């Protein structure tokens, strides 16, 4: 099961959705793809049915690599400001409510442009290809 988190109307914030689109196009991944603007509490129920989960998101910080694929650890000590939840909190909620703990990973793809617009920046497109290559064997 793969969650793509983002907004395709905000340029590179649509990286995760583009990642899911690319997987659909390749038709190799046999699991479920979920498009999300943001994660919310009901996603804890969705992941409780998964064997493995990958959360894909665009990254706007100081990440030097084009993409990073790492384990998603549980984190119940969340601080949060809105209705949205982080993958770590979704996994903690899943464990607390459903008593299951699927293996989970986070794939962060570096973006550059975040204005209104549906086109990914050229750097984001390059990073997207690298992210696909990075995890294609895994999935």
């Amino acid at each position, binding site marked *: 099961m793969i969650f793509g988190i983002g907004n395709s109307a905000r340029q590179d914030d649509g990286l995760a959705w583009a990642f899911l689109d690319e997987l659909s196009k390749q038709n190799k991944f046999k699991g479920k793809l979920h498009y999300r603007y943001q994660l919310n509490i009901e996603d804890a129920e969705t992941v409780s049915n998964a064997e493995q989960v990958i959360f894909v998101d665009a990254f706007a910080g100081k990440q030097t690599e084009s993409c990073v694929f790492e384990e998603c650890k549980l984190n119940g000590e969340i601080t*949060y*400001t809105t209705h949205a939840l982080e993958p770590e909190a979704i996994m903690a909620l899943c464990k607390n409510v459903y008593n299951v703990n699927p293996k989970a990973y986070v794939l962060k793809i570096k973006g550059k442009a975040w204005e209104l617009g549906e086109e990914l920046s050229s750097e984001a497109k390059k990073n997207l290809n690298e992210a696909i290559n990075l995890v294609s064997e895994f999935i």
Partner: protein
Amino acid sequence: MSKKIIIEPVTRVEGHGKVTIQLDDNGNVKDSKFHIVEFRGFEKFIQGHPYWQAPLIVQRLCGICPVSHHLAAAKAIDQVVGIDPEDLSPTATKIRKLMHYGQMFQSHALHFFYLAAPDLLMGIESNPALRNVVGVAQEHGELAKKGILMRKFGQEMIKATGGKKIHGISAVPGGVHKNLHQSEIDYFLNGKDIPNINTMIEWSLEVIDFIKDYHSKHAAFLDTFATYPSGHLAMVSKDGSGTLDLYDGNLRSIDSIGNITLNDIPDFQYHKYINEDVEKWSYMKFPYIKHLGRENGWNRVGPLARMNVCTSIDTPLAEQARKDFKDYTGGKPNNMTMHTHWARLIEVLHSAEKMKELLHDEDIKGNELVREGVRRNEGVGVIEAPRGTLIHHYHVNDTGKIEKCNLIVSTTHNNDPMNKAVGWVAQNVIDKKEEITEGMLNQVEVAIRAYDPCLSCATHAMGKMPLELSIFNSKGELIDKKYKS
């Protein structure tokens, strides 16, 4: 030296808000303000777009209550194509209502289980690292599971009726573009894939019992915390009976002791009775009833206001719950901010009952989806959104382009009430305290969260609202202040 306390961002609300509390040399509260410091400007963005795009575009100002904006805009644009609410086909009206009650159900469930429950169940001064939904799930697993599935049920209803869970596409000028097929209806009735509508009603009743029990154990806190007299504004049915109507009706308001201040005015005449004021320190406007003036004319909106304004609910279980709620104050208006959570759960039950009623209505399978009338140049759509009365108003030119748009969203109505709530906490919790604890600051947020504000929705057109920038040095002293009008 005087001291300024800043809480930024305010947590567990949608959008970016800031609270400032100004203390004098003796630690007394001099002033408090709830600032809205983010900006959206959809009233400006929409200008020049074809009218039919309004229900699709304006809902994108929010990812939490897009259904409410989708439907309020659609109701307004119906009028632009010559269709008043009573002229929509039964199928279109009922599909939209089903979408609306799904939204009300999921939004209120999310607020209670995710945003309010951590404060209520863990305690407002408990460890902040655990005072969240994950902590609630650890201590109250079954309650959390029901909350998750209630939210999911509402989201699935929105998807079935609106086409998508977020930013639906179903409501179009003069109607809807799809009905429901029997298989889609069965999904909500047979309980095979998700718990069915009867279970949703059962769980809604359980949650009301839960909050009543909680009230019985914490009355001193709930009855006094951030309590202050206010007016209350909501929509009621058009037949004059005062029945709660969340989808379409007339506007009614009462003062803090129950005198009617707006007497069932048609919603499209809102601008004759409601003004909006501005302040330098917030992007959000301050609506008030014109004849009462800025000082006295502000109102709460949302679940508490609706329970105060309406005189009945047209579903039996929620009506009984409303009567129990009214009994608590001997039938008088309830001005206790924390009772908003109780009122919200009554609306959860009402929404579930309405969804059941509509799921068994043959009209939702009907084929007459869209009606057309004679084009007009203006439309007003009003709806009771989860957070309160939501107003969309559009002026359209002869070529079909939107020339002017005014949105008064629920959180904007609650601007003065939220500031009053913050002021109450500042005066009653923080005043004269030598040490300001995290728990005290959380109490400011608890008062705001009772209104479930959506700050993203509540900001206005570019260039219309001033911006204030305060600069503090490392000692916390104000060294410069810039103001842009």
